[in-house]
């Protein structure tokens, strides 16, 4: 087995706030292989965005990556790097694509300048070389009339085009890894299709690995080979995409899949997950999902579940792995019961 490109072990990122310590990322481990596209799925508050920022060490006080966290990229320890060495990694070996293309681009510089900037910083390119590179990248990402477009400002481009520009910037130095944080959430669905297609095509051709962070299971299904599901700062399930959709184990994953309406699917009431995500300053003891889980029992409150091995390459943080017969006895989750009694 070849060495993974990115290895995250036991990552803890805590925010020290007036209201207490928010354990946004609380013991996350995973790896990304060369040429792989891995999806990270979760809803607001699960810690997926903070994980992405942590990898690039972009977390600022009052947040910090706790000691004991290990992040290895291309064999090097990311946490041991000096800031200057880290700057050499960002945009060069690991690039990030953010959600909002309008705020990711500087409004006072042309897109050509901004793409060229990456080359100037990392490859010491001259102005002319950088400009040429910018045009080449614009062509690569499928923007028509690239010579003309390079001279335009972000506000003159549509949302889809801007996101292409952001992707172009990410690819200039042919990085080994792209971290895409909800890259298409802000875009229309037809544009989303274009952008995802572009990303898949380019990364396939260039052999780039992608860490695709999203809340959309549909996007994951079509673009990722492996999926990591996050909840309350932890990884709760990891599997190949096929396995996750066919044989989801963790009740949260089941809930997510049930809550998704699908085109062409059945039309009854959508299954919901009652309750809300707990606060990161106050993760519950034991299993963090238990109040919203239809299968939980006493053990779940007492014992924080480890990541159980379900099958090859499929793990789940749920005691059901140890006592599968409990799945036969679902009950209304505690969150729903509590609510009903107060109504």
């Amino acid at each position, binding site marked *: 087995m070849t060495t993974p490109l990115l290895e995250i072990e036991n990552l803890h990122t805590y925010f020290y706030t007036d209201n207490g310590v928010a354990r946004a990322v609380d013991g996350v481990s995973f790896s990304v292989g060369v040429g792989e596209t891995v999806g990270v799925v979760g809803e607001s508050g699960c810690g997926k965005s903070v994980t992405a920022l942590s990898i690039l060490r972009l977390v600022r006080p009052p947040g910090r990556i706790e000691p004991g966290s290990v992040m290895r990229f291309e064999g090097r320890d990311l946490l041991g790097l000096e800031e200057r060495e880290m700057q050499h990694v960002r945009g060069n070996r690991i690039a990030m694509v953010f959600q909002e293309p309008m705020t990711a681009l500087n409004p006072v510089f042309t897109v050509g300048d901004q793409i060229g900037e990456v080359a100037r910083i990392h490859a010491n390119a001259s102005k002319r070389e950088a400009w040429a590179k910018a045009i080449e990248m614009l062509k690569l990402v499928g923007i028509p009339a690239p010579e003309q477009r390079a001279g335009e400002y972000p506000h003159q481009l549509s949302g889809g085009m801007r996101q292409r520009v952001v992707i172009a910037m990410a690819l200039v130095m042919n990085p080994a890894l792209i971290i895409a944080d909800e890259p298409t959430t802000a875009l229309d669905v*037809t544009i989303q299709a274009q952008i995802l297609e572009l990303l898949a095509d380019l990364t396939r051709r260039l052999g780039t690995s992608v860490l695709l962070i999203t809340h959309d*299971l549909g996007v994951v299904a079509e673009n990722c080979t492996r999926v990591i599901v996050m909840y309350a700062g932890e990884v709760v399930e990891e599997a190949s*995409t096929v396995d996750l959709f066919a044989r989801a184990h963790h009740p949260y994953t089941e809930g997510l899949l049930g809550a998704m*309406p699908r085109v062409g699917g059945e039309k009854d009431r959508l299954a919901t997950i009652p309750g*809300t995500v707990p606060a990161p300053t106050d993760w519950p003891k034991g299993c963090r999902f238990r109040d919203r889980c239809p299968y939980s029992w006493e053990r779940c409150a007492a014992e924080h579940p480890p990541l159980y091995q379900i099958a090859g390459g499929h793990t789940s943080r749920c005691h059901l792995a140890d006592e599968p017969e409990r799945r036969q006895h679902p009950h209304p989750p505690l969150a729903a019961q509590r609510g009903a009694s107060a109504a």
Partner: protein
Amino acid sequence: MTVPAHDATRPLLSVRDLTRHFPIKRGVFGRVTGQVRAVDGVSFDVAPGETLALVGESGCGKSTTGRAILRLIEPTSGAVTFDGIDVLSLDGAELRKLRRRMQIVFQDPFSSLNPRMSIGAIVREGLTIHRLAEGGAADARVRQLLEEVGLRPEYATRYPHEFSGGQRQRVGIARALSVEPSFIVCDEPVSALDVSVQAQVVNLLQDLQRDRGLAYLFIAHDLSIVEHIADRVAVMYLGHIVELAPVERLYREPVMPYTQALLSAVPAPEPGVKRERILLAGDVPSPANPPSGCVFHPRCQHPARDAACAKIVPPLEEKAPGHWAACIKQPPTSVSWEQQQAAGGTKPPEFFLPRAALHRSA
């Protein structure tokens, strides 16, 4: 002009040729140099108790349509009839009375509630303005409404920032319900929420519709949610309705090429099934400068697309019972082949339904 109506019963809401243009001003003196045709002649009916979905991508004019119906934006022209009343001709006091019956729920749970008012005060506002209840009776009503949308009544004294997005959205719904409307414009009510929270709010909207007999104009861009909640769907593009059909028909047999592309773009949670996609070329044109003839023709993938499409504005016509579409190349069409040829047409209409547009139905 024949217009897509629901059926023989009198519609609750009737919209005809609704138009809203925004003037583009240039220069020191603000000379009007053009118009942004945000909504360009939209017509549809909504029957009592039904959900008509209005879908489309950004810039298609669906939000503007919703707001224009309520006269939160004044339409440039057209007619809006609510329960027989001509909405556009009402003056201040009469409009205020009518407002009770037509309400709106907004997309952004963070900006749709006044941050300086407690949620109880927010929900109570409507009762006070229309003198529906006062004092203790009003308090009781507020508690009732909060419970109805799934919030604990004792939270009435708390402020919006203390709640999550989904909860705030519920407050917005409670506010709309407080004046007892029969029609609610839901302007992307779940787009800003997480998937599991979306499901909760959608279920709530459906329950309320069933319990109170509400009609919804459900504006959205998420086609999967729409399929779940709507009875009929209208697809908008660049200010026009390009297709309108009962929901099963639209998803099973989309006629308009734009709808086909839209449906094919929805990511399906079926790994391993690599669906072919209809990828539209380029971006949506600016509504300040829409293409001539059929507004979709520059990006259309219909095999019979030709010069006639750039000249003739396709009428919204009934292709099958209850199923309307604006395309001169999808038969049956009232625009005869001779007329098309006269406009430069070279390819006769033929029915086109790519597999890429279809999702496996249950």
